[in-house]
């Protein structure tokens, strides 16, 4: 896939690596279950060794020895600063000390609203999913919300069946009107094809970087709503040998995530 030194990688690996790069060193982040666990751990082992990682069951600033299978398992408090309570972590976000929420998504719309609750009608759902878990809290209370999910039309939809977790709701001003804290909201979406942010004026999803070997048309084809495009559209840097080695050997040797 990559044209410079023939490094082979799959789409999942690229997505995890691209997502991990979004986390700055020394920032604070609450990490949700699944792909974010792999990306967070990779960030800690590469460019962000001082990343302050939190987990919603109370793990506070661990040094992850292996990727957690649950955001409440014992890896999440390994060599941590604190093993505390859920509300201790959530209240840190509520008072404005949490830079990033990092979550996965089942269904997402152009304003970054996420559905992880049901397909169909609420009273008679066709499919029941887990629900919010901590995702609504994280996306309501953290400053910037990162979402990592595969780019396909079933996930990127015109209208989500249920707004489990708030994005920009109906667009500009609606988070504020709903009463959500100022200075919070969706920030990036990292998929297996591209990286998106949100346009300042309309608060709609906008492509800012396309992964190597992918065209904008392909991203649009796999998205169920019209994407905006940045005037400064970039190509995502291909994974480095070092990133791939750490991801494969240290973060996810069992291939829980990258083998999907």
């Amino acid at each position, binding site marked *: 896939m990559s044209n410079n030194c023939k490094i082979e990688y799959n789409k999942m690996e690229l997505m995890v690596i691209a997502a991990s790069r979004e986390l700055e060193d020394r920032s604070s982040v609450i990490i949700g279950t*699944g792909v974010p*666990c792999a990306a967070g751990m990779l960030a800690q082992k590469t460019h962000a060794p001082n990343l302050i990682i939190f987990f*919603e*069951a*109370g793990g506070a600033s661990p040094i992850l*020895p292996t990727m957690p*299978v*649950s955001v*409440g*398992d*014992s890896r*999440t*408090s390994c060599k941590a600063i604190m*093993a*505390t*309570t*859920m*509300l201790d972590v*959530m209240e840190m976000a*509520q008072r404005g000390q949490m830079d990033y929420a990092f979550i996965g998504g089942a269904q997402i*719309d*152009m*304003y970054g609203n996420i559905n992880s*609750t049901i397909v169909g009608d*609420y009273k008679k*759902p*066709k*499919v*029941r*999913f*887990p*629900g*919010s*878990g*901590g*995702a*609504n*809290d994280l996306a*309501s*209370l953290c400053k910037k919300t990162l979402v990592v999910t595969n780019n396909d039309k079933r996930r990127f939809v*015109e*209208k*989500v069946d*249920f*707004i*489990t*977790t*708030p994005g920009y*709701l*109906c*667009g500009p001003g*609606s*988070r504020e*009107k*709903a*009463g*959500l804290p100022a200075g919070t909201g969706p920030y990036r979406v990292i998929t297996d094809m591209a990286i998106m942010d949100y346009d300042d004026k309309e608060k709609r999803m906008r492509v800012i970087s396309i992964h190597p070997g992918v065209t904008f048309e392909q991203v649009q084809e796999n998205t169920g*709503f019209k994407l905006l495009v940045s005037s400064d559209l970039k190509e995502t840097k291909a994974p480095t040998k070092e990133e791939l080695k750490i991801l494969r050997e240290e973060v996810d040797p069992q291939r*829980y*995530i990258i083998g999907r």
Partner: protein
Amino acid sequence: MSMCMSTNIDNVTLSSGIGENFHPFNLTESRAKIEKKKFENKLTTVKEAVSKYVHEGSYLGTGGFGCNRIATALLHEIVRQGKKKLAFAGHTTTHDFQIMVAGECFDRCDAAYIVGLEARGLSKYARKYMESGKVKTTEWSNATLAWRYKAAAMGISFLPAKALLGTDTFKYSACKTIECPFTGEKYLAIPALAPDVSVIHVHKADIYGNCVIDGLNNSDSDLAKASKHVIVTCERIVASEEIRREPWKTAIPYWSVDAVIPVPYGSYPGNMEGEYFSDERHLAQWLEAEKDDATYKAFIKKYILDTKDFNEYLQLCGGIERMTQLRNEELLIK
């Protein structure tokens, strides 16, 4: 283009959720009913504790976090005793949820995280049960459900917070919005929740019910304070002197606890911090068994219904040999 083509604008200005509050909190009644538990020997058995404190219609809360530090022995016993029509708090419930579904024990559910096992995938049977129409649900998030416990623990009927606002999760919750009397700021108002009974697994307890959790508390100190009755299982019973020597470690004090039962490996197949890792093999077998009705029924019969107690279940799962492997995994010993 309409501003709101992708979503429902009503949610943004909605002032009250339409979800049912399955267990409304009444301060006067709660203060009258919540007993200060005695300083007495509370050692009992799993069988007796479940039969005494879990009743048809009870509201049940579970400690831990889905597959981590859960009171598996008590949950199995609730299934074996055929308890039905419970209301259940889905405060990140994963394997505990699967067990309650196996017994079809509940018909009302406060859902924050249900039917999934995080990175392990979704439970087919849990989904089927939730899609069957047999269960009434109200939506929450993990933090709002934890704040419900916190409010009851504080002895007040609600707490304000800043989550849920503007979403369908709010619409299908039993929350309202409220204005701060000081600043006029809009808040979510979260109703208190005081479960009738909660089941919590801890590392150590003395015979009076003073409990130490050597690791993540999740919401268990608040859950214990909020609940009318608390049944505790522990990895081991310790002398009361051990509690008094390091009193800052007490996560749950005796005045919140009704019953204590030592159950070594009591969180199995879940993880117990510092003790043993989750048995991913057994959890995968469980998910696999759910793919076929007959296999699933036989699986539940073998592992829960036909076992006389938790130790028999542990034996079926590989006994001390398997537990030793899981301890090595927990300690990252290769």
